[in-house]
């Protein structure tokens, strides 16, 4: 934002509670009303809300796949091969005559899982590594950072391909691979946030009050690290959906028939001339989900900023 506005903006915040009479005490906001405030913040951010709704719908559909899927995802009906989107098959059918919508719904189970689960796992590990390296510094930090530097020397996709290629295809391996390639990036974010929080005077105040290091880390540093990590994790979820799809596209995902979105694009690739929609529909979904995570990340950033809590 512009600095003139910021100049006044700060002022504006500072002044916002100046009007009340000193004797009059305001009722303390309840936990529920604070939750309501947060919800209003999120709802105001239309892009984030749209992202959240899209993700919720897809996740719900994937979880309830046996109930909501119109067809068996693997049932092949040769009569409808290459069927264009329309009645009957809402999103058309693929080269083997399988219903694309049903395959998307079932595939969502794998694709969402391979994006979200490794991100969460990596976040936990990175939180630990980054807090220790960033707060204590010194040799420990040096070792951690030099090790991470090695990972940063690889383009992230390449590292994924290398590990997946060596470990072999399969859901479990894919999750492991994505977790491993995420850890360096998330650790770096946690470490940076930790270091900047450690420099703040409130940490000195805590030390002056007699707090031990572990108490300072938990009480003062951690709350300031979790928020940026969550925001970053949301964005990375989107990116990892892309990476997972890429691996599957490359033939390194879970083996058929449990089709995920990347694999659907890959099979659609061979019939691109006859029926472009077979590859394009899952492609669009992949991009939409990645975007949704991005919007969600932006929304989280605003939501978790203490300044929005009025």
């Amino acid at each position, binding site marked *: 934002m512009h600095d003139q506005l910021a100049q006044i903006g700060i002022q504006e*915040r*500072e*002044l*916002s*509670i*100046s009007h009340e009479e*000193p004797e009059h*005490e*305001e*009722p*303390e*906001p309840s936990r529920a009303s604070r939750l309501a405030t947060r919800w209003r913040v999120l709802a105001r951010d239309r892009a984030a809300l749209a992202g959240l709704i899209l993700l919720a719908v897809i996740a719900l559909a994937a979880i309830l796949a046996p109930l909501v899927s119109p067809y068996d995802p693997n049932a092949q009906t040769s009569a409808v091969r290459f069927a264009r989107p329309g009645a009957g098959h809402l999103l058309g059918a693929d080269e083997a005559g399988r219903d694309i919508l049903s395959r998307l719904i079932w595939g969502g189970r794998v694709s969402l899982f391979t994006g979200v689960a490794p991100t969460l796992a990596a976040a936990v590990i990175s939180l630990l590594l980054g807090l220790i390296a960033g707060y204590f510094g010194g040799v420990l930090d040096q070792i951690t950072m030099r090790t991470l530097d090695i990972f940063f020397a690889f383009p992230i996709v390449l590292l994924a391909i290398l590990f997946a290629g060596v470990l072999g295809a399969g859901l479990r391996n894919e999750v492991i691979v994505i977790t491993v390639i995420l850890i360096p990036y998330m650790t770096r974010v946690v470490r940076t946030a930790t270091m900047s929080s450690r420099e*703040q*005077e*409130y940490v*000195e*105040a*805590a*030390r*002056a*009050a*007699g*707090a031990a290091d572990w*108490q300072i880390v938990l*009480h*003062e540093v951690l*709350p*300031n690290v979790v*928020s940026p990590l969550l925001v970053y994790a949301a964005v990375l979820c989107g990116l990892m959906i892309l990476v997972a799809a890429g691996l599957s596209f490359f033939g390194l995902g879970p083996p058929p028939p449990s089709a995920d979105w990347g694999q659907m694009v890959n099979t659609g690739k061979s019939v691109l001339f006859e029926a472009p929609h077979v590859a394009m529909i899952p492609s669009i979904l992949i991009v939409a989900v990645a975007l949704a995570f991005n919007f969600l990340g932006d929304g989280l950033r605003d939501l978790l900023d*203490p*300044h929005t*809590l*009025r």
Partner: protein
Amino acid sequence: MSTALIEARDLKKHYPLSGGLFSRSARQVRAVDGVSFSIEAGSTLALVGESGCGKSTTGRLLLRLIEPTSGEVLIDGHSLNEMAGRQLRRARRQMQIVFQDPFSSLNPRHSVGEIIAWPMRLHGLGNETAIRARVRELLKLVGLQPGHADRHPHQFSGGQRQRVGIARAIALESRFIVLDEPTSSLDVSVQAQILNLLQELKNQFGLTYLLISHNLGVVEYMANDIAVMYLGQIVEYGSAETIMSGPRHPYTHALLSAVLGPVTGERRKRLILHGDPPNPASPPPACRFHTRCPYVQDICRETPPPLEAADPGHLAACHFADQIPQYVSRGERNP
């Protein structure tokens, strides 16, 4: 001085200077270079000087927030630097700090109530109900409303945030508080509120202050004694009255000249120094002030002046401390 609550003995803090990527030389920044003073219980000592003179570092050394390179701090005659474990924790309860920046000194993620309560919880001072009651009491004491406990720091103005910082500092019923530029980021009208509050609390609880400031107006208002620092060393030390009325060091004289009277804008004593303060990483040899001193003589470039009594109880580190008062009374423009 038997009544000294806090005593600093020849404190030194040298930071190694990593000379960029090229040289890992043995150069050091002598941020604090041999500082000694004592503060009597119930009085206020002001550390005065420009940025980079080591006054904030001294304040942190006093609380053992950083470890000194050499020297020690005594509290009630016991060496703070030899303490460890529970003994150190108990000593920490006696001493607190109020920071300059009311933004970075309060954790934005915690409510004000949590910020004030946490030190008490750390020391196990009562159960949750008692602590919560005490937080409300403290908020009232510093001029905020008890209902403010649930708000976050960003919902307050600079002055109000500084009040929160003060409430946190007195929560443990400490006896000694370091005030590190407590009002320099505040407007004058708010500064007056905070200064009044600090004086009230001092009278009410018999607090002892170390006031770190570059503002001589504030210092003169608050302090019993003044220590003037230049490049890591104390160059003048004495009671507030004697220093303000008759400085014995030309640097103090120059600092006083920088105070502009609000009504006529007149300078009390006119002495304007040339140049900027030297880099603390390479302080000038002998008398560190000689590069900017208008009265410099050969001896100043060769022999460091000792900090010795110019009058009883009034120390100055200047070879010509005896002659400075004449310059002061004579000097209108630069000599």
